[in-house]
């Protein structure tokens, strides 16, 4: 069977321009039309070309600052691309919906806000609310303001809202590290659902047990693809590397 791609990344490079300091002189700022004095360029990704296919779960590993999160951001379409091209079969879902939620409002109102900002209609929200509450396992707290929630409850609610419509491309950044055993199991089921509906899951994780369940693993180091292939092999190579650099 020819693999059918959901995400194609071609020759992607992303450079962050970090602005250290604006000049304290307004005259100077005006003359340089507000440009910053010291700009440090950090190449977060260089010439990355990868393809992810339907029905795959891909683990992404790498040291801190290797470009894992930048790649996820770029695939979600949230950060501008300097060079290269990313094509996707549909809008990827990142668990970013948490940013839209309001601590002062109740869990139920936040479900409504979260679903609406994700593009649902009112009827759809009404239909889906109960299953979100059950999935997050917070029925008893649902009418309390969200600021009274524990961080685990918040994370569960966010995950439940973000994945309430089974997405075609799901991007998870360490998401499974949150929540108790029961919730972790439900999250894994939801990932299975994405895979079963011929979607793609991209998973940034540091946990070997989670990574072993992936179909393939992408190893990034200093913004470049070090290795991309069979999960067992790649994981071993990465762990050897990580152990060696820690010694």
């Amino acid at each position: 069977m020819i693999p059918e791609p959901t995400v194609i990344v071609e020759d992607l490079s992303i450079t962050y321009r970090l602005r250290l300091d604006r000049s304290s002189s307004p005259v100077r700022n005006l003359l340089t039309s507000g440009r910053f004095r010291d700009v440090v360029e950090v190449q977060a990704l260089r010439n990355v070309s990868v393809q992810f296919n339907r029905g795959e779960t891909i683990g992404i590993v790498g040291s801190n600052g290797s470009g894992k999160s930048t790649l996820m951001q770029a695939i979600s379409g949230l950060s501008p691309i300097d060079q290269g091209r990313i094509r996707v079969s549909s809008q990827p879902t990142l668990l970013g919906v948490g940013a839209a939620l309001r601590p002062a409002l109740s869990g139920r109102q936040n479900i409504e806000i979260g679903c609406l900002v994700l593009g649902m209609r009112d009827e759809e929200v009404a239909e889906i609310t109960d299953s979100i509450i059950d999935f997050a396992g917070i029925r008893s707290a649902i009418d309390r303001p969200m600021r009274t929630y524990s961080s685990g409850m918040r994370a569960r609610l966010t995950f439940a809202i973000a994945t309430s419509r089974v997405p075609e491309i799901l991007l998870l950044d360490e998401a499974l590290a949150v929540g108790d055993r029961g919730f972790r199991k439900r999250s894994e089921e939801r990932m299975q659902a994405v895979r079963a509906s011929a979607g793609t899951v991209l998973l940034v994780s540091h946990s070997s047990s989670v990574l072993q369940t992936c179909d393939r693993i992408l190893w990034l180091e200093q913004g470049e693809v070090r290795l991309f292939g069979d999960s067992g092999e790649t994981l071993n190579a990465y762990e050897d590397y990580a152990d060696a650099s820690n010694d």
Partner: protein
Amino acid sequence: MSADPPELVDLGCPVKLGEYARDVWARRDYLLTVPRREARGRNADFLLGQLWLIINPALMITVYFVVFGVIIQSNRGSADFLSRLVVGVLFFRTTQTVIQASTSSIERNRGLIRSIQFPRALLPLGIVVGQMYSFLPSLIVMFAVVSFGGVEPMWQWLLLPAILLAHFLLNAGLSLVAARAGFAFNDLGPLLTHLFRVLMYGSGVIFPIEDYIESERVLNYLAINPIYAIIGVTRWVVIGSDLRSAQVWSMVIWCLLVVPIGFGLFLGAERRYGE
């Protein structure tokens, strides 16, 4: 790579205006619900709750009337002055609030922009809709003041929905322009405060411009100012004041053009708002 399945979407390509408008339309339920919740939430903790939606404009009009009508120019403390004032102040203040809040709408929501994909135009447009929820109750105050001033119901009152639509379109288009401009130039916010002070006199909000300027030509040029135009038309609709045709034309042209222009400008930076 030419054999790729055709259904893949390029994340880097510019967004097309038509698709964008459809995307915004698809999220109309967000626009109708979330700003309303926010507007309600602001008054929820007050003892008088949502009554503030009426008290606020009533107090504002009282202060303006006392300062400008009674203290400064006591001869103008007439019912007609008060009626003109209430229309002018309510419409002007709404547009001013929308524009000023929109200039910082991208900056204030950077976290949201970096976390979720949605048409960014929802941010300024949400401000416009939210402002509607506090503006509509203030119309009760407006009609109360106007009736108190002795204005009898007129056939023009039937045109009020059209005026509200025009005002909404104007605010929507200007909010998109303001959001884009505020993104490009951070210092716009403080500058606007002063611009609006000038604009308030230039729009005849308190004192009629016609009292100071006699030249018909100059007055017609001044009607290019959309706020002056819409306030003039609204005063004709609500209290039957004199109207110049330049104001009607200006309002119609602005309403037809400002939303597409606003979208076009705003869209130019759509993928850069998260920077």
